[in-house]
């Protein structure tokens, strides 16, 4: 290296860089006791009873999320803010739907999240694509457990991806 020329990268450890290692108190070991209590299966069974009750309301929650997304889309706010609100709602659906056996709803939510992150400018120009996704959530909710439309269900995600490709 010629004199006066700065190195291309800064060293990872400076001379005065202080590093302290310590082992914190293991609070979990103090309160979680093995060989007593319940097995995982027993816990799952108990939780399942509760979750089942919660799942009865899940379709209403999805319908509410769809209505809110439509309201977000029509709101008088900058597009980026509206998109972020829709993303938050889709993200929640993506995370929760499978717990209640609504995998397709979760998949559409995932596709919507991915589109918002990947092609926000396209969605601003082609808001139909957003609407298509939001309506697809309603459709998925309605037909999630309907085997008569198995083919349409399997093609739904592909057709949503196609709509994005066509817009590009």
């Amino acid at each position, binding site marked *: 290296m010629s004199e006066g020329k700065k190195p291309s990268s800064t060293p990872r450890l400076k001379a005065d860089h202080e590093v302290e290692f310590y082992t914190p*108190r293991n*609070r979990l070991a*103090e309160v979680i006791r093995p060989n007593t209590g319940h097995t995982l299966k027993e816990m799952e069974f108990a939780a399942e009873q509760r979750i089942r009750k919660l799942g009865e309301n899940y379709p209403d929650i999805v319908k509410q999320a769809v209505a809110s997304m439509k309201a977000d889309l029509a709101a008088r706010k900058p597009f980026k803010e509206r998109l972020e609100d829709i993303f938050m709602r889709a993200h929640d659906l993506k*995370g929760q739907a499978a*717990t209640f056996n609504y995998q397709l709803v979760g998949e559409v939510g995932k596709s919507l999240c991915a589109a918002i992150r990947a092609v926000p400018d396209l969605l601003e120009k082609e808001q139909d694509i957003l609407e298509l996704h939001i309506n697809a959530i309603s459709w998925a909710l309605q037909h999630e457990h309907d085997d008569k439309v198995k083919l349409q269900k399997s093609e739904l995600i592909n057709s949503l991806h196609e709509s994005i490709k066509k817009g590009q």
Partner: protein
Amino acid sequence: MSSNLFGHNTKYNFGDLKVLIVDDNQHMHNILRDMLLGMRIKKIRHALSAKEGLQMAESELPDIMIVDLLMKPVSGFEMIKKVRNHDDEAIRDLAVLVLTSYSTVEHVRQARDSGANEVLCKPVSVAGLFDRFTYMRDHPRQFVKTSDYTGPDRRRTLRGFDGEDRRKNPEGTNIADDGKGEAIQTPHNPEMTKQKEAQAHE
């Protein structure tokens, strides 16, 4: 990373565990609450924002915090950083489990760099929570304090193994450390394979 999932016949008593859930989604809280109640955890509190979560941790210290990443106005990443830089040592050293729908390497790495102990991807399950809680209990991590990071040591040791390699590796890829504590697959090197085969013949 090893897991306790396969030892699920072992009984555990979570009855005294104090959990603080920080998630701005009420429905997610209901799901988590029901799962934790199924695990016989009685002391469950819920904060709807990062700010509220910090205040609740300050008023009564939990044993573990379950934090969502996507929150407004303060994200889970920022909240964990605040926990790790807290003046109170007990809060700073809290066990933090991130619960997220973001399952990309980048987000997991970001959560780790914020100071999270472990990450659990949604959809959440009792098995997943059981696994993470017991793993964190049985594998406490050393903490590191530097000028720009406080939290669990981010390096996961890639230990050597002397026994026979029985991994199925059809593409001939190799496992290596990427220099950032992550295991990565490196491309197949035909020259190296030839050399190894030649050595085996000798």
